[in-house]
């Protein structure tokens, strides 16, 4: 099993993800500079967070239109898992691999803190290790994280249980106060129709070691590794 971690100009969470996959979990993983363009021999992809191309035009817009994204689409079409974290989520929506758009937070401030989340579905390659409706906490760090989708797309996401995570309060309720950025229906992460492409604003790689205060985020990567082992 080999996982690619895509680096664009301005990506800055690449080495954190690499550290978790390689050093903490002992998996084979490599950073891949976007100019490489091909992803032969990889079984999964992580698009890490950062500020690709300075967030110029719209967050993720420029990275989404690079040639390597064609290779990511091809890999996703083979059913292999693709996870976009924070800026990676923005890249995946801009590349139209996921529904909706991520816009400036309702209160236009860079939000950097732990956020309570509810796991909404276990039926994805990234959430299988969680429990039904599990309440977890992961760090967020973003200014353009307000998820928006047109009504029909939103209905489709809800109907097919494609919302993976929602912002909730300590009791697991998706309240307005628990919503850090004004995301529609408190959505923090979604999957594509094939369920093998996930985008989420929270940073699981920042909560994957006890020394950092939490190992919860590692379950996403462990679920992803299980899925690859079982299917590829």
């Amino acid at each position: 099993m080999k996982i690619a971690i895509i680096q664009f100009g301005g990506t800055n969470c690449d080495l954190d993800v690499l550290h978790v996959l390689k050093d903490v979990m002992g998996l084979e993983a490599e950073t891949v500079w976007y100019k490489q363009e091909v992803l032969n021999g990889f079984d999964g992809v992580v698009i890490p967070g950062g500020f690709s191309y300075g967030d110029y035009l719209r967050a993720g817009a420029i990275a989404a239109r690079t040639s390597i994204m064609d290779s990511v689409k091809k890999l996703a079409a083979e059913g292999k898992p693709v996870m976009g974290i924070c800026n990676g989520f923005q890249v995946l929506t801009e590349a139209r691999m996921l529904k909706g758009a991520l816009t400036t937070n309702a209160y236009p401030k860079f939000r950097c803190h732990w956020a309570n989340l509810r796991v909404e579905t276990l039926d994805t390659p990234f959430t299988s290790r969680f429990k039904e409706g599990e309440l977890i906490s992961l760090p967020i760090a973003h200014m353009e994280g307000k998820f928006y989708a047109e009504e029909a797309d939103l209905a489709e996401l809800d109907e097919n249980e494609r919302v993976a995570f929602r912002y909730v309060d300590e009791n697991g309720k998706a309240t307005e106060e628990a919503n850090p950025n004004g995301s529609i229906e408190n959505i923090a992460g979604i999957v594509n129709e094939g369920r093998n492409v996930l985008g989420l604003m929270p940073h699981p790689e920042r909560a994957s070691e006890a020394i950092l205060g939490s190992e919860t985020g590692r379950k996403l990567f462990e679920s992803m590794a299980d899925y690859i082992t079982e299917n590829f």
Partner: protein
Amino acid sequence: MQYQATVKIEQKPGMLDPEGTTVKRALEHLGYASESVKTAKLFEIVLEAESASAAKQQVDEMCQKLIANPIVDKYSIEIEEKK
């Protein structure tokens, strides 16, 4: 022929405009009342094309493929001959 296209990108009606809202509040602080403040982005693109309509078509493609995000933005294009 050389043309200049002016592309205006605005948010679709109903979308929140936090930057506009913040500017509106700051204006109120300075004693200026306003009904609403909306922000927009303007791009000036100089390009070669056979005609104004060909230039507009090219710029329209640019908007659809990159400059605008059809989920949240609406855009308008004005073309003038570059002298």
